[in-house]
């Protein structure tokens, strides 16, 4: 029987966001379907519902005509659905073979795991995929790409009907991507249903047969890959031409004297990182995940130890031992992971805004709640934060509004932020709010703040920054002005080995 996966009327809401609305589509066996959309469009949510990680509020998923009703990821796996996430779900200390056959290894005499048999079966599978991996090697010693291959073999071995890939190429080199695509074609020939989630348009055209485009939780386009083009896809994803977003920005053109000078900075990740940031300048950091951009931010901010090199602010050498020292010197960091590092989710908007200025909002020994309210209301107005009151728990705001709360924290009247580091400030927020964030970044520069703008979205980093620093493997591999930069140039430097 031909395999078929169908989504019918899927709905899902989170506090403050309708993540998915009325999603309907189907995929047949032997076809590769691309799930395309901007960050926050709902792709991951849909995958999580399919894999039993989340429950849909309404709608059904049917596989081969049977309605699926999962209460845990294990149910989904048993029903024949495997999702290969960016974060590996392997045990690093165990061998390739043990990872491919988890839980139910073949047993020999006395019920012991038969090591040889396990290894032989794994080797057969590895050969079938034409790979060169030692089945006895601990998974932790393999490169990211090979770990991913192990995960694919694990899914294949389970005889899954559906194999979904979530941004599989993000950490891979070109050569590794070629191997991955070859694997996907084999799975396709074996009649599997394949879902492929990616931002990268060129890949979509190389490897997929059909495309479903999500935008703000809705399915906005469904087409055959052979019948569409990049421009059409971008329009569907963004809802307008990307060029306009940036052309409409009110930029700062007054770039002043040097504010921050980093020379030969080294940490356990960074090697010889040097750059300068001027008053009113936006310096963008581009690179792949793990290139060391976040580490640069954390080292400057005093969050991670620096082993050597020099950091100067306004000509004076500094070496911050704690983030507190950095904040006192006028450095602010909006961290990459809002929920893990940026916000205290169960506290109010006010408590999250006044975190770094508690010592400045006191009347005598006590906190001055009125002053806190005023500062917060000011931030809510300036950034149009959508919240009914300042007492609202931050967790209940949408991603974009949460990001604005953090921006409000660092730009309140009690702060004297000179250097603002934004680490992936548009991650997981919707397209409309993104445009707002871009304008805010330009406005910060207009106020004379030096902005470090770290982003994994090439288009964004190339179009927002005055200067672009490209990193790879903990080193700076290139630096250029916005006028010089193209996405191709930056990408080439980011992937440089």
């Amino acid at each position, binding site marked *: 029987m031909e395999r078929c996966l169908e989504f019918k009327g899927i709905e899902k809401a989170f506090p403050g*966001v309708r993540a998915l609305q009325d999603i309907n589509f189907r995929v047949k066996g032997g076809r590769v379907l691309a799930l395309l959309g901007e960050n926050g469009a709902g792709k*991951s949510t849909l995958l999580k519902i399919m894999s039993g990680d989340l429950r849909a509020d309404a709608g059904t998923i049917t596989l081969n005509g049977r309605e699926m009703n999962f209460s845990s990821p294990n149910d989904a796996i048993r029903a024949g659905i495997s999702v290969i996430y960016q974060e590996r779900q392997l045990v690093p200390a165990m061998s390739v073979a043990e990872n491919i056959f988890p839980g139910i290894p073949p047993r020999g005499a006395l019920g012991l795991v038969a090591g040889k048999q396990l290894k032989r079966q794994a080797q057969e599978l590895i050969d079938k995929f034409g790979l060169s991996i030692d089945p006895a090697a601990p998974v932790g010693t393999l490169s990211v790409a090979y770990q991913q291959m192990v995960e694919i073999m694990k899914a294949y071995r389970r005889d899954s009907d559906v194999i979904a890939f979530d941004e599989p190429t993000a950490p891979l080199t070109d050569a590794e991507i070629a191997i991955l695509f070859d694997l996907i074609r084999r799975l396709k020939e074996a009649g599997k249903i394949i879902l492929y989630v990616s931002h990268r348009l060129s890949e979509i055209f190389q490897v997929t047969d059909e495309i479903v485009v999500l935008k703000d939780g809705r399915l906005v386009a469904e087409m055959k890959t052979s019948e569409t083009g990049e421009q059409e896809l971008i329009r569907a994803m963004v809802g307008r031409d990307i060029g306009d977003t940036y052309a409409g920005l009110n930029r700062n053109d007054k770039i002043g004297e040097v504010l921050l000078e980093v020379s030969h900075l080294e940490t356990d990740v960074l090697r010889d990182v040097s750059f300068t940031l001027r008053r009113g300048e936006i310096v963008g950091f581009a690179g792949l995940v793990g290139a060391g951009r976040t580490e640069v931010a954390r080292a400057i901010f005093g969050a991670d130890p620096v082993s050597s090199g020099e950091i100067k602010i306004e000509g004076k050498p500094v070496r911050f031992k704690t*983030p507190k020292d950095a904040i006192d010197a006028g450095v602010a960091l909006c961290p990459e992971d809002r*929920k*893990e590092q940026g916000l205290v989710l169960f506290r109010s908007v006010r408590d999250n805004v006044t*975190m770094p200025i508690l*010592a400045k909002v006191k009347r005598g020994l006590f*906190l001055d709640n009125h002053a806190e309210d005023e500062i917060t209301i000011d931030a809510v107005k300036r950034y149009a934060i959508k919240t009914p009151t300042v007492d609202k728990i931050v967790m209940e705001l949408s991603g974009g509004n949460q990001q604005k709360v953090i921006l409000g924290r660092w730009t309140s009247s009690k702060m004297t932020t000179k250097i603002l580091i934004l680490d992936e400030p548009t991650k997981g927020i919707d397209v409309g709010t993104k445009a707002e964030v871009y304008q805010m970044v330009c406005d910060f520069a207009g106020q004379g703040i030096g902005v470090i703008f770290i982003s994994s979205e090439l288009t964004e980093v190339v179009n927002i920054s005055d200067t672009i620093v490209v990193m790879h493997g903990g080193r700076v591999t290139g630096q250029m002005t916005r006028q010089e930069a193209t996405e191709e140039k930056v990408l080439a430097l980011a992937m440089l080995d």
Partner: protein
Amino acid sequence: MESAKGFKKFFNEKMVTLLVLLVIVVAAFTVLSKNGSYLHPANIRNIFSLMVVTSLLTLAVGCLMISGNIDLSTGANGTLCGILFALLLQGGVAWPVALIATLLIGMAIGAFNATLVNIVGFQPFIATMAVASVAKGLTYVANNAVAVPVKDPVITWIGTERFFNNLLPVTLIIAIVAFVFYTVLMGATEFGRSVYLIGGNREAARLSGIHPVKISYILFINSGMLSALAGILLAARLKSGTVTGVVNMQFSGMTAAMLGGVSFGGGSGGFGGVFIGMLIINGFNNGLTVLGVSSYWQTVASGVLLLFALTVDYLNMKRRGKRVSKRG
């Protein structure tokens, strides 16, 4: 207008639930006890006279729990300090000197806990449990497991004197002052806010310029000091430093904090609710004594009550966690 808002905030849903629970406990024991002897002034006096010990232990562990930490050595620490205090007095040391010396010992144990947790990086659960075991052993070693009498007139006056028709023990005044102090400290100051923020998200607090390690040290040292004070006041009340001391009241302290809404996950709960939680615990423990339940069964009952508080906390966390851990 403003005070009305404050009033509303104080008597929120949780407070009402707790007050209802308190009324139920009191009513049940009154009905069950012979001639309603539970509510007899003599018995109320009994409840009040020991409340300071649980109060101090509750405050000690409560502050730490709000910061997302735990101290399982409060009981053992307090007991050790109680017997050391009695020994110092017996050895002829003046009471103010003995008091300060003993408090310093309690604080040193707290600082040791803080070092194990923050610098060495041990799990607070295991680290403080090990320290508790050491303190417990030392308690027995200190005077060969024999109780030490306390005869100093000032100390025994503090431990046993009652005002207002014998209804208001000096120790209860200490307990109330301590509760008011910590309620204000945690609710209205920069320090208190920092504790909540660290408990809510330690890394976010650190990246916003708060020093989690510094605050953790202060809280562990504070916990050690309050435990020592609890041990000292029990010795003063019993006129004797004993080897069992305040050990059994440690769990009452934790139960009271959790009943009052302080979560094991950190970052939430206020001392208004905790105060009522503490009244419930004290009323409950005393009620069992009044009904003549054997002390063995009382231990079982305390455990069940702690499990109940844990369950409520777990369900709350799960409800919150469900909304946060699943990212879209």
